[in-house]
């Protein structure tokens, strides 16, 4: 294949090029302005553009499509040919869902009004999306009718796209859909209860358990066929043995998403679209998205993530990027706002935008698409305005960033990171399962989120519902806090990570409770056997994932502390009070700081760069202790300094220092 994407980046005919692009939505502008906009984008250092291809915009009548034949502004072929002429590559986002503040999310009304495509709530109502410009029913991932309709759109689009794929044309990547998890409605008992989904749920159970007797053994039930099984509509578990049925429903939704994208990917392939396909992961961690599982499939090359550049919420941004870096083949932020939506709670200044972008880079972002680089409607703060003029204060930022990225080979470098924090799918599933209600009314009448939790006194030593990454005070949050306070950079991943990937890290933190799949337990112990250091807690599992007695971890270690195992170590750490004594020896820092409010990472490549972030709102001062001389290359003094360097750093600022080895 002429195009390849791996952990090192994007390769065209074997030549690595940065996956560094900016959005220009052709359909928002008069075709007369397209050449100017493309020229401006190039002037800012971009050689790749990205654009959605909204289905509802191109479908001018039932089954009738306009790609510029009637309305030149819809001229996708002409736009792509202009890209070729300008020497610009393209990423397309043909949906079927594109969002972009379009009525009905960009779906044709004709399609979305058909009840046969709707995802249904547990009460049988259409699940309405209320996050976009207009309310509309969320399509079901299980709906064959919906996929048929998508097929018609792809039939019309394929001739335009297939002949313009690289190397014959500029299109190098096709990003499917947006909001890859039920448009944000991820609560366990909210969706999807349409007939086709329930059928798929039963198929999923059948694939998982085989003979119905196997399921009956786990569920303690007496079903004679899978067709008798109803999907749970709220959590009513009273004993531990009830739990697997609820966990299965949550797991099914991962299956539903995976299946949908595999089908959708296959539809692209069937129509001659052979370039890499990606999907856009939502800003959530683990279930119901299975980012790692999706990338194992043949159809999905890459999962990206959307990031809102909010400088005042550095911890959230850092967490998102760490998760992306720990789970995606290539840490690609598919939508990084260059500016803000018109109704965003704040409009970023160029300085704030710089802070957000460099914060993402320091935590591992290695490929990026800047959303609305050329301003569309409903947007504020793009570096290129609608008429093709530069908005200089923002354009300058992108010019400087581009020079910096090129000069120091930032996109070819990788974050130095030897520590991993793993989310447990089982615990995250339990967290979702131990709930009731749905979000439809939570937002509308401001119901506290805790009302959606159910209390399950099931006799666990450790309450699994409190061990989600979303839970304040959970072990995994404590692990992240411990590492951040020690100024040790880490990645976040999930328990679907393959052992071979895990062994790229020295130290792995894993949250545990009373139950854990035995194969998972074996996998993590194998990590220690191969020389890693596994730190787990707060629970010592004594049950398997189906609530049967069984523990492998417990057989390996019974009391809090550290033991050697194989070539590595395991530490059972019920609480973080003792963490410092047990594990600091394993997390050496090459460069040290004496200010705990600052954050530091290192990216290595042709250059070794130290990124130092001040996420606070006050000026900070710190000593940087390095074995090698340092020289400031961004927001820092350019003179070479050796030994201990004292630096001052402004609020919401990232400094970059080159390590002169």
């Amino acid at each position, binding site marked *: 294949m002429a195009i390849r994407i791996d952990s090192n980046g994007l390769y065209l005919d074997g030549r690595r090029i940065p996956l560094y692009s900016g959005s220009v939505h052709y359909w928002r502008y008069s075709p007369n302005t397209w050449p100017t906009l493309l020229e401006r984008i190039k002037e800012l250092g971009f050689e790749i553009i990205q654009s959605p291809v909204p289905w509802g915009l191109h479908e001018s009548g039932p089954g009738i499509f306009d790609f510029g034949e009637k309305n030149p502004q819809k001229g996708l072929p002409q736009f792509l040919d202009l890209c070729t002429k300008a020497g610009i590559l393209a990423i397309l986002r043909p949906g079927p869902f594109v969002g972009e503040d379009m009525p009905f999310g960009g779906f044709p009304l004709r399609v979305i009004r058909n009840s046969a495509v709707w995802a249904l709530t547990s009460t049988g*109502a259409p699940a309405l999306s209320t996050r976009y410009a207009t309310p509309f029913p969320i399509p079901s991932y299980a709906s064959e009718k919906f996929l048929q309709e998508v097929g018609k759109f792809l039939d019309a689009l394929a001739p335009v796209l297939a002949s313009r794929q690289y190397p014959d044309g500029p299109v190098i990547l096709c990003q499917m859909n947006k909001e890859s998890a039920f448009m944000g409605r991820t609560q366990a008992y909210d969706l999807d209860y349409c007939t086709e989904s329930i059928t798929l749920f039963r198929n999923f159970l059948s694939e998982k358990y085989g003979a119905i007797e196997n399921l009956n053994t786990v569920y303690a039930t007496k079903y004679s066929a899978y067709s008798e099984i109803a999907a749970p509509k709220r959590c009513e578990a009273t004993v531990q043995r009830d739990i697997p049925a609820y966990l299965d429903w949550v797991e099914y939704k991962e299956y539903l998403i995976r299946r949908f994208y595999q089908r959708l990917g296959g539809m692209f392939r069937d129509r001659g679209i052979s370039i890499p396909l990606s999907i856009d992961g939502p800003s959530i961690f683990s279930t119901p998205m299975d980012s790692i599982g999706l990338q194992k499939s043949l159809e999905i090359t890459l999962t990206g993530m959307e990031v809102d550049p909010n400088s005042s919420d550095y911890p959230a941004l850092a967490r998102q990027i760490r998760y992306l870096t720990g789970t995606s083949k290539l840490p690609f932020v598919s939508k990084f706002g260059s500016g803000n939506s018109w109704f965003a709670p704040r409009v970023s200044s160029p300085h704030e935008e710089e802070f957000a972008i460099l914060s993402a880079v320091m935590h591992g972002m290695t490929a990026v698409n800047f959303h609305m680089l050329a301003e569309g409607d409903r947007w504020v703060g793009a570096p290129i305005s609608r008429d093709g003029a530069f908005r200089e204060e923002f354009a300058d930022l992108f010019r400087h960033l581009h020079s910096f990225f090129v000069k120091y080979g930032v996109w070819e470098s990788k974050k130095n990171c030897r520590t991993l924090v793993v989310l447990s799918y089982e615990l995250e599933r339990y967290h979702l399962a131990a709930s009731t*209600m749905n979000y439809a009314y939570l937002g*509308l009448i401001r119901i506290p989120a805790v009302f959606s939790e159910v209390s399950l006194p099931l006799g666990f030593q450790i309450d699994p519902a409190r061990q989600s990454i979303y839970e304040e005070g959970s072990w995994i949050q404590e692990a992240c806090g411990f590492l951040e306070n020690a100024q040790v950079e880490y990645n976040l991943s999930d328990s679907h990570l393959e052992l071979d990937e895990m062994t790229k890290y020295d130290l792995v933190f894993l949250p545990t409770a009373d139950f854990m799949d035995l194969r998972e337990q074996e996998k993590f112990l194998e990590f220690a056997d191969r020389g890693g250091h596994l730190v787990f807690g707060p629970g010592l599992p004594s049950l398997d994932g189906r609530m049967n007695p069984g523990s492998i971890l417990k057989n390996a270690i019974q009391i809090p502390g550290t033991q050697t195992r194989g070539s590595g170590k395991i530490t059972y750490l019920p609480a973080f009070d003792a963490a410092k004594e047990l594990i600091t020896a394993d997390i050496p820092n090459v460069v040290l700081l004496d200010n705990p409010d600052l954050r530091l990472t290192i990216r290595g490549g042709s250059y070794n760069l130290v990124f130092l972030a001040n996420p606070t709102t006050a000026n900070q001062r710190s000593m940087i202790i390095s074995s090698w001389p340092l020289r400031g290359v961004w927001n820092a003094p350019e003179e070479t300094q050796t030994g201990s360097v004292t630096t001052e750093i402004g609020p919401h600022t990232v400094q970059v220092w080159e390590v002169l080895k």
Partner: protein
Amino acid sequence: MIARDVEIVDLRPGIWRNLISLMDVSRLSDIRPVQPNILSILHHSGKVLRVYAPAGFRVPTIEQVDDPQELAKKLYYQLPGLESVQILERDSLMLFSDQVQRMDWMPSDMEDFALHAFHLAGQDPAGLSFFPPFSWKWNGFPLEEVRTWLASGPDPCAYFLGVVRDGAPWLTLILRAAEKKVRLITTIDYLKRFDVPVERLPASPKDLAVVCDSIHAHVAPIRAALICDYMVFAKLLTSEEKRRDLMLAAADGLASSFGILE
């Protein structure tokens, strides 16, 4: 109030940033504060399932809900400082959720949709009790009054808000309404496409009024405009006597308006 296909363009970043910053000052769009000061009680057939109190409020132990409306009122007065008390019956919530999602979504913009949902919530006072009764406010004015006022204007018409600070335009919001809905939201940068030299605008409230002619010519006849100095504007946002303050500012040459006081 805002049409589903509203055009939102040419938002000058600095000016839009100022407008957004006003949200905190004036509660311009205070429909859902980030941390609502709301006491919420969830019950099922009278048996209390959950109580959620905002930080700093000590709520008496409640195990049973017999008369939710009366209890909401009693707690509201018993715990000064609460924004409201809501007592919600679990099955009523489920029903409300179901009914909201069965509403006619096709012709709605999000604002219409949310208003209908709130009306729906008000139709089950035994199951969904709010005290004080829920009212959606927009900068202190009931939203429905604002919608009515907007819908009563000439068709089409424009609205202009211009605020000058330190000798430069600090806020310039232009709206165009037609067929009872806002169809365009923009700032003075919109006028650049008509060769209006917005970069060189005069910098006093009186002088900024010249932009009204361009708005009239290129957007729509202006129905209401307020052009003033920042200090006047900041005071107006929280003033109880907006009319009086505006007239005083006008007399001092710090504000000019039309369509506002009439």
